[in-house]
């Protein structure tokens, strides 16, 4: 007899708005002061005061958050994505067509810089840490089909990638630096359901795989096994592999009970895949064979994002899920080795 699925460890209710994205930041923080950033969009009370907020949650641990929340920059934008950087800078992409850099060091909260993305799509940007204080940022371009890649903090454009074929808008991006030391690559999932791999230095499309019939909502890639996974609004999750000739092959497909995946994420130890479903449920699958492991039911609306914490102590690693029902739930799953 299988065990009943676990309940959430604890739940954060204070966002007051649907949670669009989550990002843990546990390393390089003082002991027991891990951070969680959440991005959400406040419901407008009146049109003028459309306040969209990013929040920092401090001290997330197994016993619950110590200090509740630090109000982060108020800004008229939907916050889609954060990335923490060494200097306490975070990158926030908003629906106001801008990506802003915020300085959070020493309790400050000031915008230091911003980039106009000119894209009105839903695609979240992706950030890649390069050596020497440089970052690469991939954002959807002004042209609906294109992806722009910029160098940060200098903001110089590196390249613009636009497919020849009509693939529609890019829906999700992920930058990847292969170990072999060659140029960075970019994964992009497109509106027509295909997943593409781009070479940034040659600005060429390395491989393309039409793996869904519907737009790709989210993808994640495991550099160790050269194997990735993608979800769409369909009833299935597909995994694919990258072979030696840099070409993509469909590997496996898992049928779901209800259609729609809004986000998926592979845990750092590459044992578990978590998916955020339109059916209000979080699903856990074994990453090796995509064996279904658990269905976590807590939320009462679409789950929009999942994130695994990168805590130094493996036992303290948590999974967080943000939902349209304005809550963030925390789960401790498969932590005992």
């Amino acid at each position, binding site marked *: 007899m299988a065990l009943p699925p676990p309940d959430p460890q604890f739940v954060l209710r204070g966002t007051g708005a649907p949670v669009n994205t989550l990002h843990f930041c546990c390393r390089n923080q003082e002991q027991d002061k891990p951070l969680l950033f959440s991005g959400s969009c406040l419901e407008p009370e009146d049109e003028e005061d459309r306040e969209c907020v990013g929040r920092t949650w401090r001290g997330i641990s197994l016993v619950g958050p110590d200090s509740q929340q630090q109000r982060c920059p108020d800004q008229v934008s939907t916050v889609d994505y954060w990335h923490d950087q060494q200097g306490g800078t975070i990158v926030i992409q908003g629906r106001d067509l801008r990506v802003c850099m915020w300085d959070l060091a020493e309790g400050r909260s000031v915008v230091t810089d911003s980039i106009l993305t000119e894209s009105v799509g839903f695609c979240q940007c992706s950030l890649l840490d390069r050596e020497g204080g440089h970052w690469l940022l991939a954002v959807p371009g002004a042209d609906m089909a294109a992806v722009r890649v910029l160098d940060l903090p200098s903001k110089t454009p590196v390249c613009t990638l636009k497919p020849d074929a009509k693939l529609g808008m890019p829906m999700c991006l992920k930058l990847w630096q292969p170990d072999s030391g060659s140029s960075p690559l970019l994964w992009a999932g497109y509106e027509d359901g295909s997943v593409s791999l781009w070479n940034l230095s040659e600005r060429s499309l390395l491989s393309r795989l039409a793996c869904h019939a519907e737009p790709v909502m989210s993808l994640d890639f495991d550099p160790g096994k050269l194997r990735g996974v993608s979800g769409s609004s369909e009833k299935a999750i597909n995994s694919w592999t990258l072979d030696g000739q840099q070409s993509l092959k469909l590997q496996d497909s898992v049928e779901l009970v209800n259609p729609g995946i809004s986000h998926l994420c592979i845990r750092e130890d590459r044992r578990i895949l978590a998916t955020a479903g339109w059916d209000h449920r979080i699903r856990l699958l074994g990453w*090796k064979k995509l064996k279904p492991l658990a269905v976590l039911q807590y939320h009462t609306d679409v789950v929009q994002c999942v994130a695994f914490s990168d805590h130094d102590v493996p036992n303290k690693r948590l999974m967080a899920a943000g939902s349209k029902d304005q809550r963030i739930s925390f789960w401790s799953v498969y932590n005992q080795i």
Partner: protein
Amino acid sequence: MDSGPLAVHLAVRQCINTLSTSRDITEVTEALRTAGRYLSGTEDDPPACQREEFARAHYTKLLQFLISNLNAHWLELLTPEQHMDLWVSLFLNGPPDQVLLVLLDCVNSCSMSSGLERGLDVLEYFLQRGRLSALLWATCQGPPPANSPQLRDALLSRLVALPDLLANRLQEHTRPAFQPLHYYPLLARELSVALERTCQALREEMFGVLVPCLSALTQSDFVWKRVCWQLVESVPDRWMEGVVSGLVQTVDGSAALSRLLGNVVLKNKKAQFVITNKLLLLQYKYKTPMLQSLLGYLAEDSGRRPLLIQVLKALCGTWSSCSAVKHSPIEQQLYISKALLICLGLLRDSEVLEHREELLQCMLSGMQCHLDSSIPRVHHLGKVVGESLSARLDPGGTRLQFQYELDTETKELLSLLSPPPAHQQPPETLPPDSRTEPAPKSPSSEREEGKAGVPAARPIKQHSSDSELDSDDELTPYDMTRDGELGGALAPRYIRDCLEALTSSEDPGKVEVSLGAAEGLIKKNPAATREVSVELVKVLLHLEDRFNTQGFLRLRQRAMVSLTVTDTLAVTGYLTTEFYSLNYSLRQRLDILEVLALAAQDLSQPTSANSAPSKHKPPPLIQPVSTETAPDLQGTGQHWRRVVDQRIESKTRRFGKGAPRTGSSAAPSRFAPVAGCFFFPLLRNYDRPQVTFDLLGSDHLVLGRLVHTLGVLMYFAVNAPVATQMGKALLDFVWAIRYHTDPVVRQGVLFAVSAVLLSVPNERMFSELSDEMLEARAWLGDVAEADPDADCRGLAGQSLLLLEKILKKSIGSPSRGPNDQALQL
């Protein structure tokens, strides 16, 4: 075994030996089977030469042996099937002339016995199975055998005198089939069949041989061409039709046809009539390739081009004529549409421009006729042709567009628009004999094989990549049984909630769930339903499929039907009034009719055991729920009763505990008392046209359905006291529209009449409806013979039969009760 004649000889000898000596039934059947194989074996077993040898030299011998052993013991041992399959078939499958001679000899030589009876049985089979025409055909076919004159004389004299021969022999015991009254008509029929086959074969053979030959020869040789033209042109007028239609059917492609016919169509009036008129407009039995080659022939030469235009105009005229659409059979309309589309494909753009006005006129009036028709196939045909016409008239501009399914017929029609490639690989270049050489392997098929090779290699690769040992097993899965389908909105629990959701909800899921739950809620609480029934049926009637709900029409219909069943008086009152009121679409009116018919059906069915409490039934054992007991006592009371009942049940022994007999218990029909409420209001206002609804005018589809529905209501009112009045009213009503131009209405009328025949008690029918019945009988006879619509003729024939049967029955036993024939709805 393979040495031809000898082998056959041996086999037959062995058969005869076995049959005459053996007492073992399996040996006998095996021997009979062996003999039968020479007559109806498969292709190679036994070889054809052996079969010929058998038929020539041994068949008569075998037959004579069989006939002389008519009393053999083993004949008694065969089962009826074996008797038919093995023994009789030996007589029926062989050369018929030999069989006839042997059988008649047998009749002459045998004395009266059961053996003779058997012989006569076989002879009767022989006549029944059309072996006479086979005999005649066989003599027509081949060259006469050597001993022909005597044999032929013998055969002829026996064929002619068969009844006399048999009567001489059998005296008064001769059978009806052998009497001149039956035999000579049979012989005449068989003669005509054989003659027809002969004619057909001659024609086919002639053109089949001549045409390929000529078309090959004329391809390169101009002299041959001239000879051909001269030949066709000098065919006498009387035979022109036969020659032209034969040629047109056999020729392959328009180019060959124009080589053979030349310009005969311009020079000979008769040929012109046949080609431009008879083959296209009057006859419609020919296949599409013939149409293509014929019209292609007209288009090929500039001299003949005006004829093509003329043909096009004639086709257009027919296609757009309302009376043609109404009265000609659907096959002919299909044929004409095909011809029209082929013509369109052959026209040049300049010609289209020149005749644009006329074509446009034709399209407009033709479209209207076709769309008015209530036969779906005609509808469909009109859409396809109209769309093609408008596309051809305004290639760049606006064009008609319809929605229709792309079935095989449509695809065929659309493919006709593009003319077949004029110069395919011409088969005429090859002499007829060398055509059979196998076609070289086409490059495309090779390519396909190459493609097929790729996926074959794929699975192996997948396996290799998958083969690494995985250890997902260390992660034990949690219980995932609760991972069910996400059921959208919650279903409403009360009928009022359901009503509210249907009226005001904007949430697709909620509307869908409410619609799905409606039927159950309506049935669950009839009292609550009655409070809102009319309101709910109004909402349902006006409900639109805004969210493309799955099964919308069926759910809505079921809900309306169960409403009608639950609160019959109020809802039928509403629906029948609304049927004639303003501002409803035809679809809604048809819905009303369907709902009424289905509700009548539901009401007329005997109630099943657990729906609708019936006082006459013994109360079911374990659920004595009585509504009279106070609600608070009900719970406890029910509880102890159940315990006691269960105890009694477990201690009781029953002998022959069969199925409970609730199914056969009688219950009063629920439909009988309310049949009038369904029926008479629908008859009330049919002749009052309104702005949006003119039943006797253009809305004949609804009229057809109305009459049909009235027929259905009539049928379900069988045994109801009101049936006679209903029948009378219905006959009065349909009388006015019995010669309606639309076949759908006429079919409805015929259906209604047969429903009256089935439902009105016989004795009442003749006491009160005798005049109507007499008129109906004359009219039905008329329709059964002369109606242009095949379905109408069939229905009329059935009704007529029914009427005759009732007539006979009521004369035979005037006090017979209600009839219980089944009627297919």
